[in-house]
């Protein structure tokens, strides 16, 4: 057995994962510049949960903050994983869409405003199914409208991860930031096991799950732009750097042919080997872009 290593830096860091959605959002801003919009005391909550026996939350699990990041205007929208698995409902979806659209209007008026999405979400909230799906469609079009002017940065740190319709929102973002603890995928492991059987994907096999949909794998596959330690300061710095960098020359989601060809080249007749997936990215292809 190897000797344990205690890193002072690691032990003294502020874990981003352990922060609440509100504190996660707050730690990204230049200190003191942030203010919350449509906060809990405005009581903009879901009208659908109580009638189904679920207690609503005063902010519907969605925190919107406006302020400056690295001296530049930005809006941060954070989803609270502990509330309904961070699920998107009518109200939380409308809060996110409205924040993106207001940022878009600011950009049109010449005020450069970036957006940061802190996605800890299983996707659409089942209790608000169709309204949640409609919200995801709106969110995606609002991201695509905004990213022409300013970067939209998605951050998933864990422990929930980013799944379902909101993985598509991450997919159309300008930049994706993940930690090793994060997971990013369309269907969650339980859903795949339920639909295709345990031979296809064993949802109780945590090392398999993280090896396939975990942050490290997604980064090596080229589906994320940064892999950062679970450290609030490091994540804030990464976000600041992407805000300063501005919009990328090409957005990942525009490379439809590239990703189609990669998917076509996968042998789905057998269980994928996590190591092989790393080589999904053909370095020659990347250079040609």
């Amino acid at each position, binding site marked *: 057995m190897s000797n344990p290593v205690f890193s002072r830096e690691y032990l003294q860091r502020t874990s981003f994962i352990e922060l609440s959605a509100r504190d996660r959002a707050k730690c990204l801003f230049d200190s003191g510049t942030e203010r919350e919009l449509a906060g809990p*005391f405005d009581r903009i909550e879901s009208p659908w949960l109580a009638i189904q026996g679920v*207690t*609503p*939350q005063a902010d519907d699990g969605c925190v919107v903050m406006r302020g400056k990041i690295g001296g530049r205007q930005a809006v941060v929208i954070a989803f609270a994983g502990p*509330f309904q698995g961070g699920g998107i409902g009518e109200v939380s979806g409308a809060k996110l869409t409205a924040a993106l659209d207001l940022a878009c209007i600011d950009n049109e008026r010449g005020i450069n405003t970036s957006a940061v999405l802190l996605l800890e979400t299983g996707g659409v909230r089942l209790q608000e199914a169709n309204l949640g799906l409609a919200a995801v469609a709106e969110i995606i079009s609002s991201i695509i409208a905004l990213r022409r002017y300013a970067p939209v940065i998605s951050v998933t740190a864990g422990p929930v991860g980013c799944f379902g319709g909101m993985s598509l929102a991450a997919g159309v973002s300008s930049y994706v930031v993940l930690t090793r603890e994060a997971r990013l995928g369309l269907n969650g492991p339980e859903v795949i096991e339920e639909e295709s059987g345990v031979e296809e994907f064993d949802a109780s096999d945590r090392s398999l799950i993280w090896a396939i949909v975990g942050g490290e794998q997604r980064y090596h596959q080229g589906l994320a732009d940064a892999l950062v330690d679970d450290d609030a300061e490091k994540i804030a710095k990464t976000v600041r750097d992407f805000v300063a960098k501005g919009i990328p020359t090409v957005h990942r989601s525009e490379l439809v042919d590239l990703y189609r060809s990669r998917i076509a080249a996968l042998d789905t007749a057998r269980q994928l080997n996590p190591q092989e997936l790393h080589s999904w990215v053909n370095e020659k292809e990347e250079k040609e872009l």
Partner: protein
Amino acid sequence: MLLEPADDAAASVRVRTSADGFKPTWKAVLDRFFSQYDGAARIEINDAGGTPGAVLLRLQQAVEASER
């Protein structure tokens, strides 16, 4: 949990919970809280199955935040 100043010199609490049948427990938790706190506050609790200990802790944290 939301804690705001009350309009009159009394405290009021609204509890919304997804767990039925815990009225005596809620009363005990709130009685204990108000034995230590006499602020004129309007309190709203949205409970998703918190333990009595966790509820009391959240109440104390809200008071601490309001006094900061």
